[in-house]
């Protein structure tokens, strides 16, 4: 249900469907483990002796296949990732815009992400952050990799106690603690970027973010007030270089959408192209939003151990099925012997034996 809605939406934004193969060379993932977040990959030896993997990710396959020409592609695929101690098949759909990523491309992708959340129904929030702004602060305060990683971890959990701990340990100074605490408090409509971030960043540092806010206000319409600046959404700066997105829907406790600008991934793969995209986690969406069935069939029609009763029951079943109902037709003796009887919406009907038709 949600898959079709999202695919139609992606196509309305000019994306075309792209199908990847279920298996990929293991090397593709081995060389980009940080991008995958989880380094456990379901791998096997193929018949030709090569090491293959059940795809844990679609983005890497698309970037691998991309040449220098721009592409706007969408996919609805299964990926295979560890979940609860075992590998699981996870359904997701998403978009990748590969090519020259300019301000308009970023704004359009953000609007598409907001519309994707809207398509799922209910209240939603699209959180955005700018990883390059965080990098600006790391440079300003001359933080090394270890301190930067710990600051990112503290920001991701809005953990001011952790920031205080970094200051006590001498990894960051008091001035930087104050700035990062202020950054962790930010949760404002992105159209108010200048006001929300003006105390933290210099005007020239904010130019791109403010420009983005302006572009978004111009093309997002009413959706713009559901898009919030939130620097608790962070990711590896080895791959993501700017805009980063995460989407939430009320009633679903986990994020259902994530993505951003990840020029550093194609760069690491030796390609001179930019890239921006996001994925929607369909399994999570359906787990919480799909209407739960409370019965298996609309009606059950049973017949006595009698040929005429069976015929009358079959005719009745046909009538109800022609009306679009789901009908279970069965001999009463068999039904009584069933261990797990299907739950019926309506009362079970028994067609007795003998008598007139």
């Amino acid at each position: 249900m949600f898959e079709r809605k999202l695919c139609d939406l992606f196509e309305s934004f000019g994306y075309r469907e792209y199908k990847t193969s279920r298996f990929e060379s293991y090397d593709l993932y081995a060389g980009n483990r940080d991008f995958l977040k989880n380094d456990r990959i379901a791998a096997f030896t193929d018949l030709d002796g090569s090491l293959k993997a059940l795809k844990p990710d679609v983005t890497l396959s698309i970037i691998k296949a991309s040449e220098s020409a721009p592409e706007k592609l969408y996919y609805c695929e299964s990926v295979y990732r560890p979940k609860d101690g075992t590998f699981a098949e996870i359904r997701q759909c998403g978009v990748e815009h590969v090519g020259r990523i300019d301000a308009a491309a970023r704004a359009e992708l953000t609007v598409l992400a907001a519309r994707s959340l809207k398509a799922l129904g209910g209240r939603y929030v699209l959180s955005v952050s700018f990883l390059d702004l965080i990098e600006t602060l790391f440079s300003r305060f001359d933080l090394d990799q270890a301190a930067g990683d710990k600051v990112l971890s503290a920001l991701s959990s809005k953990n001011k106690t952790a920031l205080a701990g970094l200051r006590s340990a001498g990894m960051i100074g008091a001035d930087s603690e104050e700035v990062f605490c202020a950054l962790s408090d930010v949760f404002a409509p992105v159209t108010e970027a200048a006001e929300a971030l003006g105390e933290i960043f210099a005007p020239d540092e904010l130019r791109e973010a403010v420009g983005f806010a302006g572009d978004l206000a111009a093309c997002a319409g009413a959706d713009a007030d559901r898009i919030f600046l939130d620097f608790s959404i962070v990711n590896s700066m080895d791959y993501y270089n700017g805009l980063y997105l995460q989407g939430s829907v009320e009633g679903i406790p986990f994020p259902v959408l994530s993505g951003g600008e990840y020029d550093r991934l194609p760069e690491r793969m030796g390609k001179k192209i930019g890239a921006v995209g996001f994925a929607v986690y369909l399994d999570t969406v359906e787990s919480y939003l799909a209407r739960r069935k409370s019965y298996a069939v609309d009606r059950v029609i049973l017949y006595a151990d009698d040929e005429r009763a069976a015929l009358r029951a079959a005719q009745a079943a046909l009538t109800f099925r022609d009306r679009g109902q789901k009908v279970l037709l069965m001999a009463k003796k068999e039904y009584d012997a069933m261990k797990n009887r299907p739950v019926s919406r309506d009362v079970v009907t028994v067609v007795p034996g003998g008598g007139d038709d």
Partner: protein
Amino acid sequence: MIDIALPKGRLGQTVYSLLAQAGYECPELLEPGRKLTFTNEAAGVRYFWVKPSDVCVYVERGAADVGVAGKDIIEEHAPDVYELLDLGVGRCAMCVAGPSDFYDDTERALRVATKFPRIARAHYESRGRDIDIIKLHGSIEIAPILGLSDVIVDIVETGSTLRENGLVVLDRFLEISARLICNKTSYRFNKAQVDGVVASLSPLVTQQ
């Protein structure tokens, strides 16, 4: 309405008293009985009593918007939640403990008994020390006494249990206290109410 998961036991009672002082009282909660959920409509809160090690699960999965969990539980389970406030209660520390004459022979893997394998592994990885983890569920202190392990990684409060069993603290590496955690999605849709809880608790916490 904000759903708050409280850990059953002494810590939960202490934290509740802070919340009550902050204006989120629910007197019914203190009455003896087996009831597990308590609501104060006027204050806009509903409380649940849950097993301390399950608070993170309830909050991460959105069954509770907010919860209180010890830093030891948070570090061990690593839930993807916001950690909004150190409540300053339930203070203790995660330590390496062992016999007073313990000598770390680095030519072999160190055998470590613990209820907290993730914390123990991370601690020794940061020191580049190879270890063999023995996961136990209780009475950790007897492990080195019986030769099951060389050392233990466990919570230490006053240290009396260690002393009574002839053990000493060898390394104190993680300060622990109760933390207010929040589901990330809940925060985005209930920011004002959650910020209100944090703002009301903060002045009381600095007094701890």
